[in-house]
């Protein structure tokens, strides 16, 4: 009966893997035997696999990834540097929140990607234009999550620190920052998704290198297997980053597990 118990314990990953393998087999077999594939419009796993091996040993994929991640890291770092302090002040000072909240909420809720053509024309098709776009999209989750975290600081704890003669700095380091940390980690996960949108749109719109450009370029030249490789690589990176942050979230705030909305 050991086998059956094992199955019950791991039934989710087993079924998940089975369904992925099943889909790949079905896709391959259908296109090989039932409907002959028109390589201009569709492709099959074996061709994607070949393209994947070629790209893995080639140079272009790595160069594209390096270029995209450089723009991403610049924009993302800037949004951390700006977003977290701004959010902290907004959470701590009521009047600052009153002043900034309507403007920032309006900007957060609106599709700022619509500004992409202007930003690209203004800042150029290279690193700067993409980094600015990433910053513009990724900064808001940091602002609002940090602010929510600061506001969630327990007044009782604040009073305790004050009663024992703690200084303003102690307040920040011992109460506010630790309480805010889980919120910032959750914000980081949202910001990564938005930042990736920025990179992709920036590179679709006007670029001569980068992973987004590669995907679009392969699409324009009907090289579907190569295009799927780009999409798969990008998905793998996105899933890895998101799952990593989800794990980090569970580590810093186990009590919030399961209550969040993706």
């Amino acid at each position, binding site marked *: 009966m050991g086998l059956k118990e094992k199955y019950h314990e791991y039934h989710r990953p087993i079924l998940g893997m089975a*369904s992925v393998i099943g889909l790949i087999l079905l896709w391959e077999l259908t296109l090989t035997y039932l409907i002959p594939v028109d390589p201009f419009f569709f492709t099959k796993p074996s061709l994607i696999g070949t393209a994947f091996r070629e790209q893995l040993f080639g140079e272009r994929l790595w160069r594209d990834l390096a270029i995209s991640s450089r723009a991403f890291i610049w924009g993302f770092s800037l949004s951390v540097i700006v977003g977290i302090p701004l959010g902290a002040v907004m959470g701590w000072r009521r009047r600052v929140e009153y002043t900034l909240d309507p403007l920032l909420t309006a900007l957060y809720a609106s*599709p700022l990607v619509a500004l992409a053509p202007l930003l690209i024309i203004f800042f150029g098709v290279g690193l700067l234009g993409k980094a600015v776009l990433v910053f513009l999209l990724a900064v808001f989750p940091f602002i609002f999550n940090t602010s929510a975290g600061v506001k969630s600081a327990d007044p009782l704890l604040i009073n305790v620190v004050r009663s024992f003669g703690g200084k303003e700095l102690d307040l920040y380091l011992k109460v506010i920052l630790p309480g805010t940390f889980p919120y910032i980690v959750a914000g980081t996960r949202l910001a990564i998704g938005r930042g*990736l*949108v920025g990179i992709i749109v920036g590179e679709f719109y006007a670029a001569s290198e980068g992973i987004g450009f590669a*995907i679009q370029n392969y699409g324009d030249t009907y090289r579907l297997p190569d295009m799927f490789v780009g*999409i798969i690589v*990008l998905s793998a990176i*996105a899933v890895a980053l998101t799952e990593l942050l989800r794990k980090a979230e569970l580590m810093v705030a186990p009590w919030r597990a399961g209550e969040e909305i993706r």
Partner: protein
Amino acid sequence: MTGLTSFYREKEAYLLGIGFIVFLLALWQCVPLLITLPRGYALFFTTPSRIAATFYRLLVEGQIQEHFYVSVAAFLSGLGIAIAVGLPFGIVMGRSRTLDALSDPYVTALNATPRLVWLPLFILWFGIGIWSKVMIVFVGAVFPLLINTYAGVKNVDRVLVNVVRSFGANEWQVMKVVVLPNSLPYIIVGLRLAIGRAILGVVVGEFFGSSKGLGFMIASAASNYKVDVVFAGVAIFMGLSLILTLSVKKLENSLARWRPEAAKNF
């Protein structure tokens, strides 16, 4: 004087918030008066009053309406399909553990990746026109709906389900009496997120796979350095998403008054 002070105290949040936006717009308007821009930058510069004038001109000429209808058609059909697909799938995934396990890898992978990467493929398959846009709106909007519906169904109180079952309810009645009412607040949250994603899809879809629509208007104006047309288009998208998201948010708050307010998340 005291009347004014108490008025200020009462409305401080609104006054400061709106005042700051007005202040920024006024500052923007005054930039050309305060400093002379170098010729290269003047090409990219515009003021709120010029944007408003352009907006009015485009409205009178009927250009905005023409693009607007195209965008709205793509938005509504994509969102409609997403609702029609996302809700049933979310419910089924929430009720059946096997189907949940089978589809989990795809949902996780597709949800983590910005769905815009599929745009070149959709353009290749469906050509430049409404269908590639509808598809990109659909794949953007379907996951928030599906995942939130799923979360709502999963979150149903087992005790309530058992009670209804004990009284002889079948699966459909369990659904109607317990599962759906419980999931509704989650579905509304999903709808709000889906609207944001759908608008994003319309904008980006029209940048690349279109010859009409507000996104196309923005992109083509930008490449002709008509900065005020770009801002007029951006303003329409901003207004649209604000109206839609805030009204769904209102609905959300009235449906789920007992839930604590979490961090904003669009």
